[in-house]
């Protein structure tokens, strides 16, 4: 520790120029990782949209207006209104709250469960601890995910929290597997041997030495899963077992729109879908970008 402090002192002289250098570095980072930056911008924009919904949205999201039923897009309702007279644009903005919250909390919960379990399974790879965990994960993953989700949401009820728990349960095996695979090979590495050699116990070895070197692949995966979570949430709501109307949610909105589609009322389902695509695309781009960032073969002029 003290050594680092001293180095910081030494580098203080360099601090003067560091600010200018930082902005240059930022520009270079953007030009070198356009995919990551584009994804991050989209994701952050949607998060902000949800956060600032009361300010941005022109209409309240859940107020039925019988004077404005099924209006086509117009300057007053830029994305039109649905069959209850609710403003589609405003609802899309409010829906970002739910869908993004679901996505992020699913990722957080499934990582918190999956990562340490994966590390333990990997470290004890080949033993009974590992086999039990893997068989359980196998069963979860062999289960038809969507049907399981529909079933469990139907049992638990249709609160947002229930949706989160179910999707997190479906997603945690992916982290467990990733981390397990990495730890499985890392535990045989020379640095693991070296760490044992200087007197590290198993716990310290797993969580101080192996895990920090094995979590890289979970970042792209988590971003990917955030996208899946949105798709799954919307899918559940679309068939009517997810988030209940009139709570604004993209999938539920598409469902409502689809019931009136044959009369030519396309906007009620079209725009929420677009918003969803942007959200999921954002997460997927972040995932791609993160993967590229760690890919040593990616080189260009």
């Amino acid at each position, binding site marked *: *520790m003290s050594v*680092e402090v*001293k180095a910081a002192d030494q580098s203080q002289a360099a601090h003067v120029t560091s600010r200018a250098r930082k902005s240059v570095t930022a520009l270079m980072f953007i030009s070198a990782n356009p995919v990551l930056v584009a994804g991050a911008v989209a994701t952050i924009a949607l998060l902000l949209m949800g956060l600032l919904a009361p300010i941005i949205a022109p209409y309240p999201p859940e107020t039925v207006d019988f004077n404005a039923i099924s209006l086509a897009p117009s300057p007053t309702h830029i994305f039109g209104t649905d069959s209850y007279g609710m403003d589609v644009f405003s609802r899309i903005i409010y829906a970002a709250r739910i869908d993004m919250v679901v996505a992020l909390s699913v990722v957080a919960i499934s990582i918190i469960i999956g990562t340490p379990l994966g590390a333990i399974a990997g470290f004890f790879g080949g033993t009974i601890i590992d086999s039990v965990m893997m068989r359980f994960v196998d069963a979860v993953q062999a289960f038809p995910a969507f049907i399981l989700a529909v079933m469990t949401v139907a049992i638990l009820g249709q609160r947002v929290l229930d949706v989160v728990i179910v999707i997190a349960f479906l997603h945690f095996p992916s982290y467990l597997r990733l981390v397990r695979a990495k730890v499985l090979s890392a535990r045989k590495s*020379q640095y693991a041997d070296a760490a044992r*050699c200087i007197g590290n116990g198993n716990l310290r070895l797993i969580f101080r030495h192996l895990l*920090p*070197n094995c979590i890289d692949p979970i970042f792209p995966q988590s971003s990917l899963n955030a996208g899946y979570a949105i798709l799954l949430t919307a899918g559940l709501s679309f068939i009517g077992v997810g988030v209940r109307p009139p709570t604004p949610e993209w999938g539920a909105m598409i469902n409502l729109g689809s019931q009136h589609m044959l009369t030519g009322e396309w906007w009620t389902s079209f725009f929420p879908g677009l918003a969803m695509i942007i959200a999921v695309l954002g997460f997927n781009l972040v995932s791609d970008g993160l993967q590229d960032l760690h890919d040593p073969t990616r080189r260009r002029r």
Partner: protein
Amino acid sequence: MLKLEHLVKEFPIRGSKAVVCAVNDVSFEVGPGETLGLVGESGSGKTTVGLCLLRLTEPTSGAIRFRGTDLATLPKKSLRALRPSIQMVFQEPFLSLNPRKSAGATIEEPLILQRKLSRTERRDRLLEVLRQVRLKPEHLNMYPHQLTAGQQQCVGIARAMATKPDFVVLDEPTSSLDPSVRAEIIDLLREIQLDTGVSYLFISHDLTTVQYISHRVAVMYLGRIVEIGTTHEIFKRQLHPYTRALLSSVLVPDPTSKLHMIPLEGEIPSPINLPSGCYLASRCPHVLPSCTQAIPELRTVDGSTSAAACFRAEELLSTSDSEFVPDAGSSR
């Protein structure tokens, strides 16, 4: 200092009852301040011996006596208390360092785990060991990928030396380095030994390096020691046909030296189905029918200070042409 008695390590083969016998009845001693070179080709089990010594893999049977304690049967907890005095330097400098830890953190960790020194004492020791391996304080904050291969290995050595061990296993510490860097690392290791009196087990397939650093040499073939003796004697007169073939294959970097390769026929037998007699019998140019009957014991041979596991060691000694003296001048 350290005494190995009849060490055996078998690896089970998945899905069958057979085992691979990586180390087969190996015994040797290393004295204080001494370097024993352990040479052999891949599959000879030399690295496994090193791993067993540190209990990085559990020996199947045998004893490892270190200052009177048997490491082989020591419970994990007492073993951890002994860790600071018996250390290891690994083969791949980059792979043996935790990529997420700075050089300073890596070198300091054994001191933290030892729980003997205060923070300031640790820092003093850190700088001391840093000087010892000729690194500079600015290297402390660097991560492995920012260091050259040579510097990485210096960090590995510093980590091993931090707790002032009495015995260090050097597992091919220079084989992945450029020949030029290799020489400097070897010099460094020699210097540290002269300063601190540490003992080394130097595991290597590189005979010129072994010759340069070791006091005594043990030659392994298929999990067994086939010959052991002082460096001088081994490189001068070989009692075992395998040692002879091995030494004759070394390409001495001197265009005036002549190659007298003594080839061994065929390839190393599979370690799963080991032959009943001498393991070299199928490849040996001096083979007799009796060689396939029994396994020759490692024994001293009259007229030589070395011990060899060959029925015909005496004959080989008398016919020893001792052509191979690549480096007699610097042998210690």
